[in-house]
């Protein structure tokens, strides 16, 4: 059962990722990315991280990707145009990626001491200790300070986003602004 589920959703991940690369219109890429994220959420469930699975769906698919989609539609981004490519990107980038992947794959496949994932088995074998309990115990005791700092970080991010995207003064649309320059 585990195997089938794994293959299925891993396949969705891969398909979504490859589709992201192949699509020319950014909205299609965004939608593919949503597929990837949701599949990843399922994979998290398979690995016994329930809270993270839900958080993935709520935060990533539900907020971040929606934000992406909004921006795509706001800026009216069209299909990708043929522009001057970067020779460095292809000539140096691809071999680099290949090398990167090769290294990672080598490490992962030859590592010793890696076991297997059993379905339904969580991180702890104690009863009554769900994944959420475990997580919150650490998060709100030891790592309380980083937690609070993260919330401040998000606040700053909000302020920053508003400040950057703010249009000064008039309510001209962006296209009118461009025509003015």
């Amino acid at each position: 059962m585990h195997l089938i589920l794994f293959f299925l959703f891993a396949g969705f991940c891969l398909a979504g990722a490859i589709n992201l690369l192949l699509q020319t219109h950014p909205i299609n890429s965004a939608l593919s990315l949503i597929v990837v994220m949701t599949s990843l959420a399922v994979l998290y469930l398979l690995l016994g991280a329930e809270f993270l699975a839900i958080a993935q769906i709520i935060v990533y698919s539900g907020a971040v990707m929606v934000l992406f989609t909004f921006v795509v539609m706001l800026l009216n981004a069209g299909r990708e145009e043929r522009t001057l490519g970067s020779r460095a990107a292809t000539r140096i980038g691809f071999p680099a990626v290949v090398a990167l992947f090769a290294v990672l794959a080598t490490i992962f496949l030859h590592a010793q001491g890696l076991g297997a994932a059993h379905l339904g088995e969580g991180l702890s074998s104690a009863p009554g200790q769900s994944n959420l309990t475990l997580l919150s115990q650490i998060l709100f005791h030891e790592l309380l300070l980083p937690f609070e700092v993260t919330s401040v970080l998000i606040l700053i991010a909000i302020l920053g986003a508003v400040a950057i995207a703010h249009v000064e003064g008039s309510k001209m649309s962006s296209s009118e602004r461009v025509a003015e320059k």
Partner: protein
Amino acid sequence: MNESAHLWLIPLFPFLGFLLNGILGSRLPRRLVSAIGVLAPLVSFVVVLSDFGATIITAASSCPNCGSVAALALPASETLSYPWLAIGALRVDFTFVLDQLSAVMLLVVTGVGFLIHVYSVGYMKDESGYARYFSFLNLFLFFMSVLVLAGNFLLMFVGWEGVGLASYLLIGFYFQRTSAADAGKKAFIVNRIGDFGFLIGIFLVLTTFSTLSFSQISVWLALSPDWHGTVLTVICLCLLVGAAGKSAQLPLYIWLPDAMEGPTPVSALIHAATMVTAGVYMIARTHLLFDRSPVALWTVAIVGAATALFAATIGLVQNDIKRVLAYSTISQLGYMFLACGVAAYSAAIFHLVMHAFFKALLFLAAGSVIHAMGGEQDLRKMGGLRTKMPVTFWTMTAAVVAIAGFPPFAGFFSKDPILYAAFLQGTGSKVLWLVGLVTALLTSLYMFRLWYLTFMGEPRSEAKHHHSTPLSMLVPLVILGILSVCGGWIGIERFSAYLAPVAAAHRPMPAGNPFLEFILTIVAVLVALEGWLIADKYYRRKPERPAQVAAALPNGYKLLLNKYYVDEIYGAIIVKPLLAFSKYVLGGVDLLLAGIAWLLAGIASMTGMILQRWQSGNLRSYAAWLAAGAAAVLLFLLLTGSPHAWSLPFFHSETIFKVSHITVIQNGQAGH
């Protein structure tokens, strides 16, 4: 009994004069500048005179109770307590030594120097670099006195170089004139060649004697009386090169005629009386070394005699009054070298002193003539000045007669001992005697030629300025004139006796013969008379004859007029190859260096151009390089990491501890 000689005062005052006039001179009034410039040598002269007087008293009266009179025993030396160089076994001090030789020399230097300073006040009255002139002149006196007083080779070399510097500064005094600037350079460079030989000599002295002090060298030499030959010969020959450069002997005399570009008092002081005699002084000072090397002595004598004849022949046909006097100086210096070469050092020094008197007088008088003629220096344009400049005429006559060697004037008393000593030396040296005799004839000839052309006959051109010569110029002329007349009356015997402690030769002198001496003296006087008669015939009675002779022997005349083309020969043999060498060989090196510089610059700029492409602003290339870098780092870690890199590197005990810690907590909380 031994009072301090205050030797350090002698160079001090000229040095102060140099500083004052050099730094503040342009802002001081002219009178003050003159006062400083003239007082400095005066004070030095007074100090020297008092020291000299003290030594005379000591020598004259060896009474036990002379305590009341301040007396000075020679040699008196003053040393600075801090050594100059103290490296290993070598120790060189700042030592001033006053002995008979340096006393005599200092008297000449400071005395004649003082007179010439006074003369300059009048001569340079209208010049613009007045303060600069006096500061350089004082600088010269400072270095010259250091040279004379030096107690070791190194300090003497300091003075040696310093007078070369002062000479350069003063020759190029009218530096706006290209010829003057070139002459200054020529003097300095040729001197430098001589100095190179001198330095080699000093190095050899150092390696041979492990000391540079004159007194210690004489001690060493006294310890081994049979030491002659090779090393000492080489040392002496090197020192001779230096002396030849400074004293304008063959082949390094070429700078002296050109040095006439400087003001006339400079020519009088530096290039007649004092600096050019430094070479003779040096040989006399180091005569103990020369005595040990017959080869070197012969070389000195031959060089001196050859130079004397050579220069006299050139001086015969020159038309510039100062050039004639310059070649005359070279010729007389040759006499002094000849004297040193036959080990008659006292005679050389005696001639040095006499020559200082009449040669300085000749130059100063010539300066007076030039001054009156408004800058005209060509003999062919002068004439008939006898009536117009009486003082100059009479003093110059005294000098001309003195240099020709007529008794009872100064030159007679100094030249004849030299010829006598040369005659006595041996069979070979009789040739030298003959050369000296012929040179005496030529000397008389060209000096009287100059005399006739300048003062006698009808004026060949209108003198431009007829203002009278100022007193400051006349008084030194008179004083030097008196000295030229009476100076020789001291007599060579008394002079040699005085100098004997320091300048006596250590070779046994051949037995003298008073009768022979008398005969030789008569011969010399007759020869001088003959020279006068020839000059009289050619330049007074039949003034058209010189031109006829010149026309009859055109090549010979041109050869002499052009100074045997020596300058041109040097130019072709030495200067041109050197320039070509520097252009092509060193030019090649230059090209190489330029090429290297260009290469380095090129590499830098090429690297810049290449690296500039990295900063393209293109996001994707940045991303590509990022990925490449990350891959490289990971590869590096993978390949050079721990031997257990294949196993997960983060699987170590700490994590296990944490894991067990948490399980304990969990277990604890679970109530186990």
